[in-house]
């Protein structure tokens, strides 16, 4: 029998507001333990929550970006469960009236677009952090637990997809795309390693073409896109093996073990999932007027999917459009301006995603400190296009521009990189090179084309890169065959 995986993803996004969800403590990671806490986020007797307006606007923005409708009226609920790092032993969350519902996110996998439904996005508060001592990675073996409540009460948005995902790859791409959207909105720093965006997967399988959902298993503890993909893939295999050997999948939560590459069952006490939700009596309902929603909507930036579509319409291949879309907004604005100045979009995109990104990485520079104007890039592209510099020399020119030596033309002149167009002079160099490499000439005549590159390289070297390699190539062929 062939099986169809059915996957839903729950994403938790920590918002980077200045203050926490329900109190004025700073949202600031890495502080000494228990230094960002107050009566409210520490759950002291008598303390009360007051919701952060900016957090509500952030979740509205996320919802709008995902095509959700924003509820006209929404309320907070208490989710009751006892846990050491949950100070009140209930979490303020949302139940049947989330801020956002019924949206979607389009993802591209293998050149096809898939629309993944978003069931809801709701607002809640984060827990504190537990450090299990003597654990060696296995929580059950810990000898004690240290509690830090700095993270307690940080605004958290939970985004729940519909079970529309059908493969581990789709799961990864969905997660990546969602992260890109949230990053674009600037409401979270979306760092996986630091847990500011976290993914859990609900995985089940059913016979191919089936209608009924199988028993779902929640998989947790994936801290990279790769581990999300691996964990989902592993869980699908585990369930298929189980089903094919006549076993039954049990509804449970499983922990992904990155090192071992397996999931294992978590011990959860019977009845602990009865959360006894009820309306949070310390808070009043939220009313999101159409005007307010429109205000938030007006401030939304261009989202990755729209941007990729725009790049495609400018002639970029899907891969290039995706790569460019993922660049920092400073680099993307260089692209937009250079194209505006008349530079060919594909070439500009290639330079930015290739050479410029490479230079940034090598020189450990951030895009904001980049000394490259759109006009510089447009000029460089045009110099290559009209043959003023060779494409290899152009890389040196770029390096000079990025190092602050001036405009591309100034750099090319100063570094003496303007292409040699004097055919007579070039022919003399070609003659010299052929004369100095008789063995290569013999091989080339015998049809060994690979030495052609070597000879061209020798000419380029002799001209310090100023020759047009295509012209050189042609000249050598003419000489050797002639």
């Amino acid at each position, binding site marked *: 029998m062939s099986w169809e995986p059915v996957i839903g993803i729950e994403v938790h996004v920590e918002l980077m507001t200045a203050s926490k969800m329900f109190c004025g403590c700073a949202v600031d990671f890495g502080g000494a333990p228990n230094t960002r806490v107050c*009566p409210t986020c*520490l*759950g*002291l*007797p*008598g*303390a*009360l*929550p*007051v*919701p952060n307006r900016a957090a509500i606007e952030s979740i509205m923005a996320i919802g709008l970006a995902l095509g959700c409708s924003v509820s006209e009226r929404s309320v907070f609920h*208490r989710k*009751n469960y*006892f846990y*050491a790092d949950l*100070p*009140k*032993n*209930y979490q303020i969350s949302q139940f049947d009236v989330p801020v956002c519902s019924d949206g979607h996110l389009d993802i591209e996998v293998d050149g096809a677009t898939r629309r993944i439904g978003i069931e809801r996005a709701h607002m809640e508060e984060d827990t504190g952090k537990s450090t299990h001592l003597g654990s060696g990675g296995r929580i059950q073996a810990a000898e004690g*637990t240290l*509690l830090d409540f700095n993270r307690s009460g940080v605004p958290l948005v939970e985004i729940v997809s519909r079970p529309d995902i059908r493969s581990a790859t789709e799961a990864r791409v969905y997660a990546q795309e969602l992260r890109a959207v949230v990053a674009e909105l600037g409401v979270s720093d979306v760092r996986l390693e630091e847990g500011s965006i976290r993914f859990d997967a609900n995985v089940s399988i059913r016979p191919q073409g089936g209608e009924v959902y199988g028993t779902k298993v929640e998989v947790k503890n994936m801290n990279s896109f790769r581990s999300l993909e691996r964990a989902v893939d592993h869980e699908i295999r585990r369930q298929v093996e189980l089903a094919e050997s006549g076993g039954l999948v049990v509804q449970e939560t499983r922990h992904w073990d990155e090192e071992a590459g397996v999931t294992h069952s978590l011990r959860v*006490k019977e009845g602990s999932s*009865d959360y*006894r*939700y*009820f309306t949070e*009596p*310390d*808070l*009043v309902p939220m009313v999101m007027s159409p005007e307010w929603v429109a205000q938030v909507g007006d401030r939304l930036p261009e989202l990755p999917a729209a941007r990729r579509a725009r790049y495609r319409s400018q002639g970029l291949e899907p891969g290039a459009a995706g790569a460019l879309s993922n660049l920092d907004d400073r680099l993307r604005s260089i692209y937009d301006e250079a194209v505006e100045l008349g530079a060919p979009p594909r070439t500009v995109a290639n330079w930015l995603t290739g050479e410029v990104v490479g230079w940034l990485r090598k020189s450990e520079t951030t895009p904001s400190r980049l000394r490259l104007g759109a006009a510089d890039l447009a000029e460089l592209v045009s110099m290559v296009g009209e043959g003023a510099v060779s494409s290899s020399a152009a890389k040196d020119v770029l390096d000079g521009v990025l190092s602050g030596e001036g405009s591309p033309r100034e750099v090319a002149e100063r570094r003496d990189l303007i292409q040699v167009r004097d055919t007579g002079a070039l022919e003399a160099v070609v003659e010299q090179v052929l004369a100095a490499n008789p063995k290569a000439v013999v091989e080339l005549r015998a049809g060994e084309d690979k030495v052609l590159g070597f000879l061209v390289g020798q000419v380029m070297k002799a001209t310090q890169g100023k020759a047009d390699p295509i012209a050189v190539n042609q000249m050598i062929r003419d000489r050797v065959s002639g």
Partner: protein
Amino acid sequence: MIASSVSEAGQLLRSGATTALALLEEALDIASRTEAQLHAFLTIDGDGAREAASQADADLADGIDRGPLHGIPVALKDNLCTRGLETTAASQMLAGYIPPYDATVVARLRSGGAVIVGKTNLDEFAMGSSTENSAYGTTYNPWDLSRVPGGSSGGSAATVAAGSSLLSFGSDTGGSIRQPAALCGVVGMKPTYGTVSRYGLIAFASSLDQIGPFARTVEDSALALSSIWGHDPLDSTSYSGPYPNPTTALDRGVDGLRVGVVTELSGEGFEPAVEAATSDMVARLEKSGVEVSEVSLPTFDIALSAYYLIAPAEASSNLARFDGIRYGLRVEGSTTEELMARTRAEGFGPEVTRRILLGTYSLSAGYYDAFYGQAQRVRAAIQEDFARAYSHVDVLVSPTSPTVAFEAGARVTDPLAMYLSDICNIPANMAGHPAISVPVGLDDAGLPIGFQVMAPALGEEIMYQVAAEVERLAGFSLAPPSQGAAS
């Protein structure tokens, strides 16, 4: 006593006839002579209070007048957080707990120049109607030391009755101010929900809790309310619109007002003396010019049932934070789960445990709709009943408590009988409306009887207007035997 009311004390302070320190020393002196029998206080902060009183005197001498409570000795129910001063909610769970912050009401009292004498006894976490559920011993009624003062704010009621403070504050979730005020012969008032900040009040049932004053006179009660209420940005349920003025109508009389007598709050379970005092007061009000009518609010018959689902449900969640990890009692265990379960079993008394179990049950899967969900519908129906009634009367009146103060120990083994003590009070909490209890007389045994005036939301002005007339008509003189013995 130097002064029989806050307003009188205020005049004496400002004329230089007395000092805040003198008022305080008198309160402390009365406490030292009555506390052994009453046990109204859990903590008396003599040093802190003397410092605050001296400051109040110095301020007045410098021409700084902080308002009607300036220099007045006040007592606070021990579920109001006081920075640096032990706050226990009368629970073992919080033995020795020192809050790092002041409740908003406490901060307002301090900045209003009030002198905090100490923290008063209550039923543990405000759950009870007799102050017998305190982990630190029962409070007794100044009118009869074998009887309870009512509850849960029994300590705050008893201290004002006894004179060991001129004014005190309590919290009212289902009658916890009004019922003890009635049983102790003082004025007790629950404000409109949302008008007094709950920030720093150790929560019992968040949607019902409201802080309010105990006073010797209706005017004092109104002055105290104006000093503590008003919008607080730290409480999301705090009202930010225009507030009524509780004192403007005190002398206006009641001519032409429409008063409804609640049919459901009489009959079975109501002591004859209580019913007689109530109808007597209604008759006098009628002579004063009010138009009296009988009003039926049928949902009042099931209000108590709904209350005993909603309040414990919220309490089960509010009290979850007491787990032995960050503050308060800890009973060790080999795992965190065990530590929590042992700490909670040990730290909570039987009534609190009972209500946590009750609330957990009514919220749990399979029972939510039949119990908690249905109770919320009843709550909405109560609000509708009130709205209908207030479309043709200005205020509603009833006894405050079906009985006078009962014997200590009489109801401790019968939770349901104890719960019935609050039958007259609960509807106002369920609707979030203001209500006040004014003493109107004594029964044959010399025990005080309270008369309740209820008004619509933000109807404090008319509520106090009627309460002031009730006070004048009753001519009730506050003189419990224990206070007589003390002075």
